[in-house]
């Protein structure tokens, strides 16, 4: 499963970020959202940035994503049911290596908790895509 972005449809409403943060943090907390809206100006154009789940399609052959590759404690593993690289918070030491390794800046690091977070495709039903009012986020099975 992958998120495909139709950035020309994005209105910059941030509903994806509020619902994403709520799904993962039980609070409305855009700073902790696993999706990010980049904007050239306040009035757009907007470009939603999501985790690409790099190499997920070849994970069964042993391929790793850049973030999983560098994790010193192997806390980032593929969820085979939906193809999401998922961080095990129990294992994460907060070293920040994954944050540096991600080419797209999609690791969210919370200094207060000393933990890294990333998109886990909401366990297979991504809330950002479900709530986006302008269909800018599409779920594609891979």
């Amino acid at each position: 499963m992958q998120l495909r972005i139709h950035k020309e449809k994005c209105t910059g409403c941030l509903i994806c970020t509020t619902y994403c943060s709520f799904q993962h943090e039980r609070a409305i907390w855009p700073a902790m959202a696993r999706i990010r809206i980049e904007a050239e100006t306040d009035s757009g154009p907007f470009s939603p940035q999501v985790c690409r789940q790099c190499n997920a399609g070849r994970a069964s052959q042993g391929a790793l994503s850049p973030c999983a590759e560098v994790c010193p404690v192997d806390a980032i593993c593929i969820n085979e049911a939906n193809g999401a690289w998922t961080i095990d918070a129990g294992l994460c030491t907060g070293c920040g290596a994954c944050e540096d390794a991600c080419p797209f800046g999609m690791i969210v690091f919370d200094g207060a908790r000393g933990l890294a977070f990333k998109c886990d495709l909401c366990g297979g039903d991504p809330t950002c895509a479900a709530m986006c009012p302008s269909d800018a986020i599409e779920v594609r099975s891979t």
Partner: protein
Amino acid sequence: MFPYKAYAGKWLHVDLTARRVESHPYDQSMAEQYLGGNGFGARLLWEHVGPEVDALAPENLLVFSTGPLCGTLVPNPGRMEVIAKSPLTGIYGDANAGGFLGPELKFAGWDAVVVTGRSDGPVYLAIRDEEVEIRDADALWGLTTSETEDTIRQLWRDTNVKTAVIGPAAENGVLFSGIQITPQRSAARCGLGTVMGSKRLKAVAVRGHGPIEVADPARFYEISADLHRRLRANPIFEAVSAHGTPGIVSMMDALGRFPTKNFQMGSFPGIDSLDAEALEARAFVRHLACFGCPVACDKLYTLPDGPFAGTSLRSVEYETLNAMGAAVWNADIDTVLEANRLCDELGMDTISAGRAISFGMELWEQEILNLDETDGLPLRWGDRDVILTLLERMARREGDFATLLSRGVRRAAETIGRGAEDYAMHVKGMAIAAQDGRAQKSMGLAHVTSNRGADHLKAFPTIDETGYPDEARRRYGEAYLPEMAQPLATKHKPFLVKDGEDFGAVVDSVGVCKSGGTFVLAEIYWEDVAAAVEAATGMAMSVERLKQIGERIYNLQRCYNALHGITRADDRLPRRFSEERSPSGNAEGETIHVEAMLDEYYALRGWDQETGWPTRAKLRELELDEAVDALDLSPDRQSLE
């Protein structure tokens, strides 16, 4: 310990005279009695700013106030209230804006910012989460609104800073100056920007990174997601989303409800050049949303060529298409957009600025003014140069005439005399927006009962605007039809107006939008807001209790105005509406007389028929005993008791 979730739980007091900031815990009884937002500000104004305080004195408060649903998961929760005594009307004043500042303030950990005093020199308020500073703003003073915002973002090296800023108009004391809220939204009415300018506060800049927690996450999620689903299934969602408020221009014109030539008419012959179709064909770039809004009624417009090629702006609303278009007899959409941009950059309310111009143009037509009195400007209807020149001159207060207009139509008419008062289209000093009570009777009543002077947004009677029989049936029941959905009928309208005012006070106090689900789509109503507030905050909330809060806020504002000398005699429309028949559209031949509707409205409100003041019994019922004392409502003064 403040017990409720969804609030940040604390507010900031900024004393500009002492140059000091102080954190205060949010008061539990304030939340229970007034929710937040509008109610919070109205209550503080009542407690701290008496009739003896001039609106531009340091003692006036300027309150930026969010509500418990602001920044949350419910649809369109991006709204913030600004409250102060109005320098334009001299009575209770508020303005509301969407955008992103309200939510950002809550993410920074503050429900409200209350500004008092006056700084010696220009300053701005910098809020980064818990860090709050009053900073010098010498370098910002004199800049336009977008220059101010851009400069702060450069200083902070952060393009995500959200701001509330004033422009040169407010610095110069134009009495209808607004406050621009990121991104180019306006808390426009009542001259609250002028209050900000009088305090020498150029901007409030906010960056927040924290969470908003809710009391019952599972239930709140379910309620919010369901409201989103319902909005998107609403029969007019697509139209509002596609065209925003400009979408109703042609409908209102057909109803004879689109003020033309300073309300001489209600339909404009050049309407095809001003409607949504024309606007979009000329300049549409993309759809834009405020925080958390699925409707995205905002659009970016850019002029591709012509004298204003490159003019680019958002938030071009129905109101401005009227104020800078039909009302001044201008059919050139480019001029409307340029006038809108000028008002945004200089920081003026497009409605009051446009009404000042149409007032001047009618005085010129009536030969009440001559060239000597207009600083050499022949105020011909629809003249592009006159419109744009007057806007610039008003903002800079250049020349006697523009300076006179910059004080609003009521004061300008009083100064001019010679019958000019008949053409000053205002109630209580506030210029009437783009509605005509002759074409929609509920709106005429709403204009006179609004607590901030002529206003459509306090009662916001959308149900009978173009006829929403399904919504009327759903909200009020079959018994209210067909009149409740008919714009020319007066039956049931006092009830519609009262219900709208009470519900609107709640909507403005929880921090959601009237243009989204609550009034324009008429989808979200009392029971929905009660459920959302309860799940978000943990405060037990029934529809009955919520209605009482709305009524309490509205009555307190009325008491505030009563202390400032407002009585039934002030609840009246300009003479034109009762004496000149509308020549236009569906309203052809119509006048409006509000007296009978007012009688019924006061009775429904429990207000005295003679004074138009809340009665002792009503205030006691609303637990506003202190207002009984303040208004000196001894039993023998109460004709209704």
